[in-house]
């Protein structure tokens, strides 16, 4: 039996990490480069008027990066094993409270290192929730995949295809 659950707080922390890891350094590069060019070529990009606007943009970007995590469900996740698949996410089009017999679903396992994840939903590279497509396989479905997933489960159930990944998830973890 394998279970993986993530709290709203963990989603918030993941959003914060995404901002700090990816967005903040890019902003820093752009600001520093613009400052250097502005000083050397006398462009006057950094004035009493533009600096507060820049700070405002930074704050706005920060809130955009974390906003959806503030309205996330209190707990999202899934469980698989013991003959059952439970999906309880209820966010970005992924249903909640769904329970299937594994015999109803066709399961495929994909090694996470061999695919790239395209998504419509939330999440940087840490927690991805929503409509997920595994490339280059072209397999689409709804679900969640978390950073450090080694295996991704593609479960084709009667009403929906689920794509699920979590740390430690593997065929052995499910069938043992």
């Amino acid at each position, binding site marked *: 039996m394998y279970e993986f659950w993530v709290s709203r707080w963990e989603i918030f922390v993941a959003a914060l990490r995404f901002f*700090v*890891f*990816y967005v903040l*350094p*890019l902003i*820093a*590069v752009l600001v*520093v*480069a613009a*400052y*250097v060019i502005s*000083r*050397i*070529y*006398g462009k006057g990009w950094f004035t009493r008027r533009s600096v507060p606007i820049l700070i405002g943009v930074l704050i706005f970007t920060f809130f955009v990066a974390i906003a959806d995590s503030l309205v996330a469900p209190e707990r999202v996740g899934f469980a698989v094993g013991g003959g059952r698949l439970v999906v309880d996410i209820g966010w970005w089009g992924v249903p909640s409270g769904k329970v299937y017999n594994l015999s109803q679903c066709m399961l495929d396992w994909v*090694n996470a*290192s*061999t695919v790239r994840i395209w998504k419509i939903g939330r999440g940087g590279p840490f927690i991805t929730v929503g409509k997920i497509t595994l490339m280059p396989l072209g397999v689409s479905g709804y679900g969640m995949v978390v950073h450090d997933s080694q295996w991704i489960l593609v479960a084709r159930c009667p009403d929906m295809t689920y794509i699920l990944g979590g740390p430690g998830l593997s065929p052995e973890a499910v069938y043992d």
Partner: protein
Amino acid sequence: MIRFFAVAFGLTWLLFPAMYIWGVGPWALVMMFTPALGVIAQGEVYRPELRARDLLVFFYPLAWVTSAVAMSALFATPEGPEAGVRYLFARLLNVPPEEVPKDVVSLVVTQNLLAPLFIPLAMVVNTFFAFGEEYGWRGYLTPKLAKRLGWVGASLAVGALWGLWHTPVLLLGHNYFTRFWWPSIPLFTLFCVAASPVLTWVYLRHGVWGAAAFHGGVNAFAGVYFLLYPPEPVWLFNPAGVMGVLGWIPLALYAVWDMRRGAAWRQPA
């Protein structure tokens, strides 16, 4: 020059914790602007002219890659693109080379073969970020030191300082794939000392933007080496290793000879 050094080296080390925790990534691009910020802090801002033809210097480092490959060929036969890519992935992912999926290797090799299509973009992006360094190292510090040491002496001194300035990223595995691998510091300093006369020569002929284009070309084309030689051992068969240093030698000797006779000085500093 104190403020220049304090900012160029100090800011770099201030970025070290961020790079250690969050990965080198874009923080290294911020770091590349610290020498330019040093010049601004020193209050000796100058305005280098940007001429389109100087950007073509971006392609000169292909001569260095060719030289490094030629030097390597004296010691080992090329293994072809797949072996190089496989070794790189294995080092980055910390897995045995045979565990890197064949499809991934083929995809990356194909991407590399398509790389020439992206040369215009690579030229602009790499030149722009290298400008942050060259504005300080070649445009400011080298002429300052040249007044006392001559162009060749200044090139070697700046090369050593420039190499040591890279210490924070070297400690985080940049160029040599292993974190806190201490030999990376003297090895890369040697690399910079060997490369520096060539960059000074380019600076004297093509100005700061020319040197930035050259530096950008080094960053852009160094990976071509891996298409022929896997980085094994990493200190030897690596564009930033001994073979890369040897690759600079003939170019540096020409640059030194040309600077000594004064012929390189066709462009006012």
